[in-house]
């Protein structure tokens, strides 16, 4: 009973956190007058035809095309990010080399680096290389361990694996890379899952980079498609369509989060920034 106020506060906060999302789902079924006349999220009728319209979008391509485009960015990006971050973290966690302190400081610094300064020159660089309107500017940087936070999380996990594992592998004749891939990597699988999930979610969320780099409609990612639809929206039925598109647009992120959240949240709590 002593904790009753705590529970009341927590339940109220949870309501504030989740109700807008429930409202969004409900609103996709509502008529305009119903959206703006009642705060309760359950609609009077369930009319799924709006989702058919939402899937068709109004941009000349179906939402499926934009999902596909987004995944074509996410897949290489995740692969690149995992591979490069694991190698770099392994180097930091297990080896000694010249200027190690300096490079680690650079890594820490890159976590706090404001992206805004580098965005415009990078745009000009990709433009000079003739790579605008391709997915290369969106994916290639991941090949160079550009997320300091990923490396940082992985270092924490590597530190949790006893050095004896490396030594045993070496005695059995494993080289540097085979030790990593056959012995250490299986031990830090939760961290790899965390990084992949983060890459997925952040790519789904990324708006500025595709906005700058991509300009043909057939290459749009989901976020750009949503923006275009909002821009061209009139009143009436279209509003429900936008809301329905937003609901559909959230499904991948929510699904991935729900599937991975047990491993994900606990590895954030175990290895994350608390160090």
């Amino acid at each position, binding site marked *: 009973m002593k904790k009753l106020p705590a529970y009341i506060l927590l339940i109220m906060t949870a309501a504030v956190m989740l109700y807008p999302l429930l409202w969004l789902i409900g609103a996709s079924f509502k008529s305009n007058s119903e959206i703006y006349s009642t705060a309760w999220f359950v609609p009077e009728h369930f009319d799924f035809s709006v989702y058919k319209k939402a899937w068709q979008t109004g941009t000349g391509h179906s939402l499926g095309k934009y999902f596909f485009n987004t995944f074509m960015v996410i897949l290489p990006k995740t692969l690149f990010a995992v591979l490069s971050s694991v190698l770099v973290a392994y*180097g930091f966690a297990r*080896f000694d080399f010249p200027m190690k302190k300096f490079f680690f400081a650079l890594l820490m610094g890159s976590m706090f680096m404001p992206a*805004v300064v580098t965005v415009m*020159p*990078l745009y000009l660089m990709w433009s000079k290389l003739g790579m605008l309107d391709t997915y290369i500017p969106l994916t290639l940087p991941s090949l160079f361990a*550009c997320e300091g936070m990923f490396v940082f999380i992985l270092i924490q996990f590597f530190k949790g694996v006893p050095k004896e594992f490396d*030594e045993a592998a070496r005695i059995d004749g494993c080289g540097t890379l085979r030790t990593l891939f056959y012995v250490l990597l299986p031990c830090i699988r939760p961290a790899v899952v965390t990084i992949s999930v983060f890459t997925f979610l952040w790519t789904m969320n990324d*708006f*500025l980079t595709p906005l700058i780099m991509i300009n043909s409609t057939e290459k749009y990612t989901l976020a750009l498609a949503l923006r275009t639809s909002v821009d061209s929206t009139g009143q009436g039925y279209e509003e429900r369509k936008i809301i329905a598109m937003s609901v559909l647009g959230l499904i991948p992120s929510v699904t991935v989060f729900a599937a991975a959240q047990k491993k994900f949240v606990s590895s954030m709590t175990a290895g994350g920034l*608390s160090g």
Partner: protein
Amino acid sequence: MKKHPYQNPTGVPAYTGLLLISPFIIGAVIFTVYPFVCSFILGMTESSISRELRFTGLKNYAEMFRSDSFRNALSVTVKYALILVPLKLIVSLLTAMLLNAEIKGMRFFRTAFYLPSILGSNLAVVIMWQYLFKSKGLVNQLLGLCGAAPVSWYGDSRYALFIIVLLRLWEFGSTMLIFFTALRDIPSEYYEAARVDGCGAVRSFFSITLPQLKNVIFINLVLQTIAALQEFNAPYMITGGNPMKSTYTIGMLIYDEMFAYSDIGSANAVSWVLFAFITLTVVILFRITGRLREEKI
């Protein structure tokens, strides 16, 4: 502590580690150092439609500091960060402490609070937020249920910024999770000892919890301040900087200079001022909150 906690295994050359981290070194040069230098040089040039670059020294900077639109954008951005960051840190810390109090269903609450921050700047969420604050939207309906008068969120320059502040506040989950993790690491013996010595809850909070959280407070403060000073997505999509430029952030100004006015020089000059401003802020925060714990590698 030994000087080198990790010696290379026998037979491994000294450059193996360097080789392993070489992707990071190459990436840092191409995607951080190069654009940095580039931006600095471009900031001192003027580009015309003929795409010819002309060196103009500090002219861009001089013009920028004189222009009303820059001064307005700077004051909007600073005001936004000053409102949002403390609010977000306080809400995150209080919620993390509630969750840490051996709550049943902790996992459910933790996930529920974390979800919005994971969806983060997803455009769908931004669009949802736009609908919530329409004149007859959910927020005003709820205000009506409480008997309050509806607020013209988009029309009133006093309130428009709060649409953005509330959106980012709603996404406090990742900040909370960092606090929560750190709270769990504080040994419970500290609190027991304090209780035996007759310390109340408030005293324990100020003498144990806050000092123990010094590092994560700093990390959260810096990360949130950097993010807030760069805000672009939400004002761009939700308010378009309106009304009367009351939500027009520096991030939007840079974007407009570059893509609406094709003024590469000014865009980069503004970027550099923002970068200098962020660095200065971080250094000041660093001084105020004390040194970050030396990271052992």
